[in-house]
């Protein structure tokens, strides 16, 4: 970082890299403000597609379903994933430990098509009607292992003597978890939840296997409408989603950065007092 000199090679790589990442999205955002109904022909600036979007009940319903599914599945996945991570990290050695932890993480590498198909067959087998509930269950299943990866990486570095101290001071094991472990690993649990939520918002494959007629999620809706031709409304919708994600990411990084700086300052001050 320090003493880096300007080089044409670096500048070009950087430009190309960012262009590769963001140019498609930029085009999408620009065309969402297009006056014309034709997506690829620029006909002047307008925000009318945003207005039309708010009138489109099908999209709004799908958005509502997606948010509901995202909220419930990520919440369930966070609870189950945190529990799984805790067991895998804490239980020490027992027979079949590596088999168990391997099985927790296996869905990470499983092709989504197979997960989706397996879930579909399972829901049919137990006679569960497909709808919001089945999507929630399906998303919980595959998001759980992501949560457990995030949480267990935090638990590995967690100072176990903190829990022992809580037990020593009279906490039951559950109380020690609730009042000491959980508050300390909360950032990891929250980012696990956010990850699960994002995955759920994002998912098309598993949702299309497990959704029913009354429960179309936004990605399914977008995908099926695009097959009939891209409408500027979808561009507008996508722009809103990009906006939400951007604001979220920036806020989160500002908050965590502030906290880090404050903590460092505090520690410096404490050190100088001595």
């Amino acid at each position: 970082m320090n003493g880096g000199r300007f080089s044409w090679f670096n500048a070009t790589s950087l430009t190309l890299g960012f262009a590769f990442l963001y140019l498609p999205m930029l085009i999408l955002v620009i065309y969402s403000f297009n006056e014309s109904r034709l997506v690829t022909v620029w006909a002047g600036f307008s925000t009318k597609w945003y207005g039309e979007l708010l009138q489109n009940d099908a999209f709004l319903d799908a958005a509502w379903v997606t948010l509901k599914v995202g909220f419930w599945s990520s919440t369930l996945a966070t609870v189950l994933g945190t529990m799984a991570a805790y067991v895998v990290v804490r239980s020490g050695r027992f027979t079949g430990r590596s088999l168990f932890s391997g099985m927790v993480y296996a869905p990470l590498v499983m092709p989504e098509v197979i997960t989706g198909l397996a879930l579909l067959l399972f829901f049919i087998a137990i006679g569960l009607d497909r709808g919001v509930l089945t999507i929630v269950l399906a998303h919980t299943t595959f998001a759980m292992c992501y949560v457990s990866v995030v949480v267990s990486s935090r638990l590995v570095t967690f100072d176990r003597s903190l829990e022992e101290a809580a037990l020593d001071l009279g906490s039951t094991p559950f109380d020690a978890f609730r009042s000491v472990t959980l508050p300390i690993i909360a950032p990891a649990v929250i980012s696990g939840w956010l990850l699960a939520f994002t995955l759920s918002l994002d998912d098309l494959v598993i949702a299309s296997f497990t959704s029913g007629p009354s429960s179309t999620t936004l990605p399914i809706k977008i995908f099926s409408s695009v097959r009939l031709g891209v409408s500027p409304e979808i561009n507008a919708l996508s722009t809103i989603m990009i906006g939400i994600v951007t604001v979220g990411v920036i806020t989160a990084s500002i908050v965590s950065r502030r906290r880090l700086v404050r903590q460092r300052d505090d520690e410096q001050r404490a050190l100088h007092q001595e």
Partner: protein
Amino acid sequence: MAQQQKKTVFEPWEDPSEKPIIRFKNVTKRFGDFTAIDNLTLDIYRREFFALLGPSGCGKTTLMRMLAGFETPTSGSILLDDKDIAAVPPNKREVNMMFQSYALFPHLTVYDNIAFGLRRSSMPKADIPGRVEQMLRLTQLTQFAKRKPHQISGGQRQRVALARSLAKAPKLLLLDEPLGALDKKLRNETQFELMDIQEKTGTTFVIVTHDQEEAMTVASRVAVMDQGRIVQVATPDRIYETPNSVYVADFIGDVNLITGKAYPGTGEQVEIHWGEAQAPIRANTSKSLAAGAEVKFAIRPEKIGIASEPPQDAANVVQGKVLDIAYLGNISTYHVELPSGDVLKAQATNSRRISRRNITWDDTVWLFWTDTAGIVLTE
């Protein structure tokens, strides 16, 4: 006079009517193939400041964790106030522990850290603030009550950990290397603070340490451990002056060890023959030794005098050449090579400035000590 003074001395282990608060009875702890604690029996008395001392891996931490309830003995029993505590989980024991890392809860303030245990006890809610403030005063932390652990210094954190573990007024307080994270100067001050607090609260303290100086400073009795066994339990001065084995003599402080053969004389007198052409060492021992038994003679460097002239009427005198001088300011240690090739260490206080300057490298010197200065060890 001497008799009367003796009564005020704190020595419950000498009093047969006194009941120990902690009894280890033939305790063994194995982790797989590794035996951490090997058939150990030990009594600790009320109000003691008891130190477990030993190198890392000697089992002292395992012993402490068994008292706290984080480990259970493989066999044998541990009694607290005559009750077997093997089956009692840590949160039900009237034992609190101060962790080596302090284990302060980073998301709670100093106040809430100290109140943590009280809120989980049977203490009425209304009494908790009073008790916390009392602990804050005891550890001089009142002005830091609202701070988080990362907003205070290392020494203050150590005091929070102490206050937190004392708040519930446990029968027994365990301290795991409590001063390890502090620098030397702060450590010395804190040792005296610890002793002061122990005396004020009247709690029984068990401290684990690998620092022999720390154990000697704070403890009423010291248990020296090696490989899961207790080698010797005694008061610091006994441990230092009359170690029962070469291991203890060598572990505590600095010592000269001379191997020889013992030839008992009249009474407690014994002559130790060592090296060729060396006069036998005259010493006293209460041990009954067979003539010619292999022994080690242990003598502390500060018990050996050094002179540049042959001393008169000393029980033991050897001649040698100064090999090295370690000047430590208050004292100097002389490494003196004897004609036999053995090196003895002698220590002298630098009570006068530039005193002892008359002894320097390669000088011929005489080392001397009395017949009671050293001890004879057989193991």
